[in-house]
């Protein structure tokens, strides 16, 4: 239990930021997909740049993690189809309801019944993929 507290706190910060930045807002997502505001693009680009620089820094320092493991960044499995098709299907859902998985958890925390319905749907979708995955190109 105790060793999971850092993850709990990091998650708490993440949920707080998602709501405060309004990345968990359907309105902001529609605005983004219609290129009407730089806000969401600014969030994504600055997050990626910050991640990129700090990951290079960690690699350069070659430090271990706080629990003594050698830090390594796992490579995503090779392929193309699963990423494009999966991304498309997820994007279709995201564009409709304006919530990706992080904001879904954050909004469930605010007590939104609607967000809870999205979470229930997402769990069923995940299960459906698990049951049918052999039938789809990867």
């Amino acid at each position: 239990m105790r060793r999971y507290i850092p993850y709990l706190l990091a998650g708490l910060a993440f949920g707080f930021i998602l709501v405060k930045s309004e990345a968990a807002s359907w309105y902001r997502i529609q605005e983004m997909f219609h290129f009407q505001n730089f806000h969401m693009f600014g969030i994504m680009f600055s997050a990626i740049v910050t991640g990129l620089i700090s990951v290079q820094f960690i690699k350069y320092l070659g430090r271990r993690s706080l629990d003594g493991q050698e830090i390594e960044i796992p490579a995503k499995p090779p392929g193309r189809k699963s990423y494009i098709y999966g991304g498309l299907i997820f994007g279709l859902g995201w564009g409709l309801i304006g919530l990706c998985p992080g904001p879904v958890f954050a909004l469930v925390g605010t007590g939104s019944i609607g967000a809870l319905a999205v979470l229930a749907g997402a769990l069923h979708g995940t299960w459906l993929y698990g049951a049918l995955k052999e039938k789809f190109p990867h």
Partner: protein
Amino acid sequence: MDTLITWLHEPWPWYVAGPMIGLMVPLMLVIGNRSFGISNNLRHLCAITQPRHVDVDFFKYDWKEHTWSLYFVIGTGLGGFLAGVVFADPDPVALTPAALAMMQSWGFTAPGGTLIPPELFAPTVRNLTFLFTAGVLVGFGTRYAGGCTSGHAITGLSTLQLASVYAVLGIFAGGLLSSWLLVPLLLQ
């Protein structure tokens, strides 16, 4: 102190929020050599609840190794509660005039202090059915692609992975299609 409280209630600009989100990637690596990503938890939740007689191979693994990740999303929910309820921002989302006009052309009222429109998220049977169905797409798609906005767009791109470039292109194309065609068609 008052400034801090005010700041906690206000919406944050992208140049504050974006870098903070980006720092999740090194933070997870430094805490315990973990990859930042949210949608994997949907799989873990399926693995935890799968009844023995259902037996889908994809959910047969030791989910306990991913307990850290479940704590992370519990934290995300708590963070959402703190930011959205305890330190709620009373002002409506400040959309650009263009976005506001678009909302009105879709028959949505201007934002009124909540992040999500009541027209779509108020718990009516029609809304909940719609949200559930779109949620199925989100769950299916993220697992098919092996990640969502956090795992691919943020972790994947900031660790320079080609797979994530494909995924992000797919995600953005799907979102454009949905936001330009399906939203006006289905929600108007």
